[in-house]
């Protein structure tokens, strides 16, 4: 038995950078020679992300073949409106309302392995394979890995270090901050050993277990690009470059060089018959300005900020990830910097805070006009270039949890929810932010060589991996198999089959069927997150 399908996730990978790093520079070898070979011998396409191109909704869409309107994961933070209070907690795998590819493949007899993927914790109670989750602090990695003994087994890997491998919440909060030069360099260096740890784990499981579907996510691409974008974007490598810039570029390139080597070793270890797929959850671009959306909504009368407590508590609150608002007066607001959405507060019963339900359309239309009116005073250009209603971009049974409006900023940046003026401010230096177009690549037997396809959608990845595994594609998946990625001969031997719909398992439609006990549990989590602050 050998690995049939190898999936390599590269969080935030973009052709803007990869095209540059796969080209031979100054007559020498490319920074990523193996990926250069994949480009030449495989097929690739841009991959359109979810409406908010963010890790949680995008990776969950990639893993389920469904949009956020169906799977229900919109952000890192989940919130519940409770009249004069709003509670926040973290999303986890139990919040995903639809079946994942790990489950689809597993229940059809395929052995799977998922390493470092977000929202795979807590793991399912039954799986034919292995999960070591991403985005989990090291102190909880063992308990959230599947099966029970896998964590102990990983300790046999030379130099295995769970603290180096796992997510450090405090450190990751820096990704969107403006850091000193020293801290930025330290940030990039921090991600080099992390990727090596995940590579070693992947190598170990491939060698020991040979799963049919082997999947590993390298998330350092995203983390590095947030802080090191000025040093990796080929469009920003002109003119006189400082010594620090050159040192940071070389350090960043060493990350990609190392990643290329890991990929080559994994592909080689998988054997000559493996089909390899690569995808990112979104692309990357430059963010040049800060947009303080709640400060703008306050000017327009939608948001009322709460006064910060004195001392350290106030400082912690001001630096926290959530909007700190007067819920008795606020009628529309942005919850978190990552959501890029606006939530309208609708009163569920008379006397409760929020707008009257019958005023919803009127308020939302006025809000859209006000958001359109936020313009660059110098050029007259709109700061928010696209504004979508949730019916437009999040259709599905989980739409009720979506923001009422989804925004796209002119530089694709993420908003700030803090109470600071001015509303729009140029950044002191360019940072990386998420672009909606990521990457999708395939390589191996049966894959067309040297082909570039038109843009695909992130939900296509699940369908494609199932097809590669020889499994039918469930009829209710939104994603389609890009058949042009595969040779005619391969398609003739492996005709595409559309099969039974996915299974919802025991999750159901949480928004409509949650009983009191479940609500109590949810509230406990929400309130405990407040405890964090």
């Amino acid at each position, binding site marked *: 038995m050998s690995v049939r399908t190898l999936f390599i996730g590269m969080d935030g990978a973009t052709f803007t950078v990869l095209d540059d790093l796969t080209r031979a520079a100054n007559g020498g070898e490319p920074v990523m020679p193996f990926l250069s070979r994949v480009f030449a011998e495989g097929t690739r396409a841009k991959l359109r992300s979810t409406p908010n191109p963010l890790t949680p909704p995008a990776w969950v869409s990639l893993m389920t073949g469904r949009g956020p309107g169906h799977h229900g994961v919109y952000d890192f933070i989940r919130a519940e409106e409770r009249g004069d209070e709003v509670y926040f907690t973290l999303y*986890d795998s139990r919040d995903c309302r639809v079946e994942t590819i790990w489950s689809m493949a597993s229940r059809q007899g395929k052995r799977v392995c998922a390493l470092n993927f977000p929202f795979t914790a807590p793991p399912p109670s039954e799986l034919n394979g292995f999960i070591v989750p991403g985005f989990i602090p090291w102190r909880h990695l063992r*308990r959230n890995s599947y099966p029970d003994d896998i964590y102990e087994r990983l300790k046999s890997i030379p130099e295995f270090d769970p603290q180096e491998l796992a997510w450090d919440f405090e450190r990751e909060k820096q990704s969107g901050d403006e850091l000193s030069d020293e801290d930025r360099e330290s940030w990039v260096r921090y991600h080099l050993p992390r990727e090596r740890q995940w590579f070693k784990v992947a190598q170990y499981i491939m060698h020991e277990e040979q799963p049919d579907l082997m999947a590993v996510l390298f998330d350092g691409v995203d983390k590095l690009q947030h802080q090191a974008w000025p040093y990796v974007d080929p469009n920003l490598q002109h003119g006189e470059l400082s010594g620090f810039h050159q040192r940071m570029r070389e350090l960043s390139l060493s990350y990609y060089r190392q990643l290329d080597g890991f990929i080559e070793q994994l592909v080689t270890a998988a054997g000559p018959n493996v089909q390899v797929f690569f995808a990112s959850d979104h692309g990357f671009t430059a963010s040049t300005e800060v947009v303080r959306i709640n400060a703008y909504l306050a000017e327009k009368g939608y948001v009322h900020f709460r006064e910060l407590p004195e001392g350290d508590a106030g400082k912690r609150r001001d630096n926290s990830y959530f909007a700190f608002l007067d819920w008795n007066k606020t009628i529309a607001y942005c919850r978190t910097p990552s959501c890029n959405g606006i939530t309208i507060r609708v009163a569920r019963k008379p006397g409760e805070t929020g707008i009257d339900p019958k005023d919803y359309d009127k308020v939302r239309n006025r809000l859209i006009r006000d958001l359109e009116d936020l313009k660059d005073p110098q050029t007259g250009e709109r700061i928010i270039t696209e504004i979508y209603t949730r019916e437009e971009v999040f259709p599905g049974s989980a739409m009720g949890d979506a923001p009422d409006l989804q925004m796209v900023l002119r530089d694709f940046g993420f908003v700030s929810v803090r109470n600071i003026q001015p509303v729009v401010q140029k950044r002191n230096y360019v940072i990386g932010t998420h672009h909606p177009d990521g990457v999708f690549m395939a390589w191996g037997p049966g894959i067309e060589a040297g082909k570039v396809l038109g843009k695909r959608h992130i939900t296509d990845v699940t369908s494609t991996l199932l097809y590669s595994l020889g499994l039918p594609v469930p009829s209710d998946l939104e994603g389609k198999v890009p058949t042009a990625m595969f040779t005619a001969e391969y398609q003739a031997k492996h005709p595409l089959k559309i099969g039974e719909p996915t299974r919802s398992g025991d999750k159901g439609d949480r928004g409509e069927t949650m009983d009191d*006990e479940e609500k*109590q*549990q949810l509230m*406990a989590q*929400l309130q405990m*997150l407040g*405890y964090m602050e």
Partner: protein
Amino acid sequence: MSSLKKNTPIDTVIAVAGDITQDWGLDPGMKLGPETLLAADLEFTSIDIIQFCVALDQAYGRRFGFQDLLMKEGSYIGDVSLGQFADFIDSRLQAQGAPA
């Protein structure tokens, strides 16, 4: 996690806490008991508390509403002991007539 469920809530809570913290590098001489405090003794942060509650839910295969334990009159309590968790679980189980 289901194997961590013991005959009594306090034994289960201690087993879950012991399982979670087994490789945290805490004082190996520390004995977990009803008086053990999550933050002061076991160095729990808020994320650890969330994970602890999830682990207890998983041990019992049900969902408890731990906010009633962790919040008093709208404020978060400063710290909480394993015994308080056990008492809370016991009260919830008894209220629903379920075996501990």
